[in-house]
């Protein structure tokens, strides 16, 4: 390898890893965040207070209620007979209310008529979606026990299909992995470049007889490598702490991560060419990060967003990486999904790297 490139890699790695705070920030914080995100989100969707409104003597309804309570996700809400369902939810004494058909569940199910109603407190939309998902799973199981045809019983959404236990950690951890890689690579690259300019050490680098490409590669390649290291670390932790599976082939995972990290490191480089000091670089990094995370589908499904935001989301590299991670880790890595998303990501990487190279050259003087 080019001697200058080697010197850059050694220097950047030593500089980044010598500082104890930096080591903690790079390797400790992601593990901690992963744990907190995973645990906080998985405990939030347990202990859902459910009130079941049914007619006296409706044994089928009692059995269904038992199914709910024994699932481990729901616990009985405390209420007295005759209370208003909306009042229960409004006062926060129940998170959800299940109202049985007036004629009794047994009779309604036998004749395939009558409606069961589920009221969910949707002041926390994410939680409401999870509650809805749980309820669908349980009632579908109960319907199957009654011999109702599955198609008629309920329709599943994708999440239930690939995350049958509805463990949110399973679904969210790939999101957290993507988010952390994004954070580390963008901020680190932008800060490192800006710091050299701010301190003046950049003058020494450009005073050496190097090509623009050599300087740019020297200042960015180390962060691609660091990003990959953090990716491996966070992935390993996700696998062993949360038991997140990697069902697809590893080469898909690493190729996806590599292309994604090239994109984010290029974005970091572009930010550094606009920032005058390290504070600006840091803020610039976050100005990119927040919308990128919000539009990526990590927290809210992209399909639920307004059309204009969906259009913007298609420009978000994190969204493609998110799809790839979930597809590879949870679904086994469908090749069509893989190549379309990696292709889109590669286009973005090429564009971002080209822009970074151009901007970088202009700021060399």
């Amino acid at each position, binding site marked *: 390898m080019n*001697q*200058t490139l*080697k*010197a*850059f890699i*050694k*220097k950047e790695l*030593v*500089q980044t890893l*010598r*500082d104890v705070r930096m080591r903690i920030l790079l390797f400790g914080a992601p593990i901690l965040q992963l744990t907190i995100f995973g645990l906080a989100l998985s405990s939030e969707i347990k202990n859902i207070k459910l009130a079941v409104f049914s007619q006296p003597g409706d044994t089928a309804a009692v059995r269904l209620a038992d199914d709910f309570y024994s699932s481990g996700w729901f616990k009985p809400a405390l209420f007295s007979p005759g209370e208003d369902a909306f009042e229960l939810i409004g006062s926060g004494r129940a998170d959800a209310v299940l109202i049985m058909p007036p004629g009794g569940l047994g009779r309604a199910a036998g004749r395939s008529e009558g409606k069961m109603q589920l009221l969910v407190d949707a002041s926390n939309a994410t939680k409401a979606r999870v509650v809805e998902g749980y309820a669908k799973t349980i009632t579908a199981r109960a319907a199957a026990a009654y011999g109702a045809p599955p198609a008629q019983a309920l329709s599943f959404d994708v999440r239930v299909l690939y995350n049958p236990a509805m463990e949110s950690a399973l679904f969210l951890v790939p999101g957290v992995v993507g988010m952390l890689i994004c954070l580390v690579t963008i901020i680190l690259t932008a800060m490192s470049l800006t710091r050299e300019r701010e*301190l*003046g*050490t950049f*003058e*020494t*680098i*450009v*005073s*050496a*007889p*190097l090509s623009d490409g050599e300087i740019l590669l020297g200042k960015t390649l180390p962060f691609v490598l660091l990003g990959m290291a953090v990716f491996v670390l966070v992935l390993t932790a996700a696998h062993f702490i949360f038991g997140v599976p990697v069902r697809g082939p590893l080469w898909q995972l690493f190729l996806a991560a590599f292309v994604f990290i090239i994109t984010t490191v290029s974005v970091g480089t572009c930010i550094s060419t606009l920032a005058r000091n390290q504070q600006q670089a840091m803020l610039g990094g976050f100005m990119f990060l927040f919308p990128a995370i919000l539009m990526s589908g990590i927290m809210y499904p992209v399909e639920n967003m307004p059309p204009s935001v969906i259009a913007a989301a298609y420009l978000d590299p994190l969204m493609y990486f998110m799809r790839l991670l979930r597809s590879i880790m949870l679904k086994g890595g469908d090749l069509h999904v893989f190549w379309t998303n990696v292709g889109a990501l590669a286009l973005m990487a090429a564009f971002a790297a080209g822009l970074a190279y151009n901007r970088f050259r202009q700021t060399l*003087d």
Partner: protein
Amino acid sequence: MTAGPALEVKGLSIKFGEFTAVDEVSFTVERGEIFGFLGANGAGKTTTIRMLCGLLIPSSGSALVGGLGFADGGKGIKKIVGYMSQKFTLYNDLTVGENLDFAAGLRKLEPRYAAKRRRELFGLIGFDRPLNTLVASLPGGVKQELALAAAMLHDPEIVFLDEPTSGVAPASRARFWALIRKVTALGKTVIVTTHYMDEAEQCGRIALMRTGRLIALGSPDELKASAFPGPMTELDFNGSAPAAFLENLEKAPGLLELSPHGMRWHAAFKDKAAMEAALAALPAAASCTLIKPSLEDVFIRLVEGVER
């Protein structure tokens, strides 16, 4: 090493948009010279040096650095010059060895050659601390000496030092200048910018810059002689100066320069007759001594002085 002067600069200019940072600068520097740039902040010293290091391409004019021009975008020049910029040139969070290894990597120096150069330069600057010393823990003077060593690792013919001693203790400044003389004794050419008059005195020749223009060029003695052809006196009023006298003195014909220096005043005149006429009314309590102008006087007269 090629023959001919180290620097041959003719009508060198650079513009940033509408702003002319360096305006038609011409001079020649011989090999082995210590050539100083003196001027206020923003006078164009650093910009001139950055062009001559191949970092900036001039808008017009020509410059031959060690016989090389800008045809290749400055890459050839970069190979034969060493540059120590006025800000950080070493990484505080790297050790001495890591810093020099990186400098060697930037220049693609062969490891054995780099190690040999490192030993030679450590001898030159008298550095005897362990290689794994963090640069942050070194005193300011030692850091600058080490920065010079890093800038000279590839054995450049010409070394550019941009304010190498700013923020360094006086004793270390003297040490650094002794080092500069050692470097020129090796046959290298040293171009240096400074704010310190005592340092400028030590240069073989000085270029004075103001607002991008070269306004005077010569050895310290030549500059003094051309700025002050007549006598210069130091006036000591033994207390505060009488305002009326100073006011008259300011208007005296043949006065070139009047400037306060602490409690005393320096007054320069066109010739002896002008001085005697102007100082005839000197108060009895005051004393006047003939002095040799300092570079500071020259600087005040040429760079900051009022046009008379």
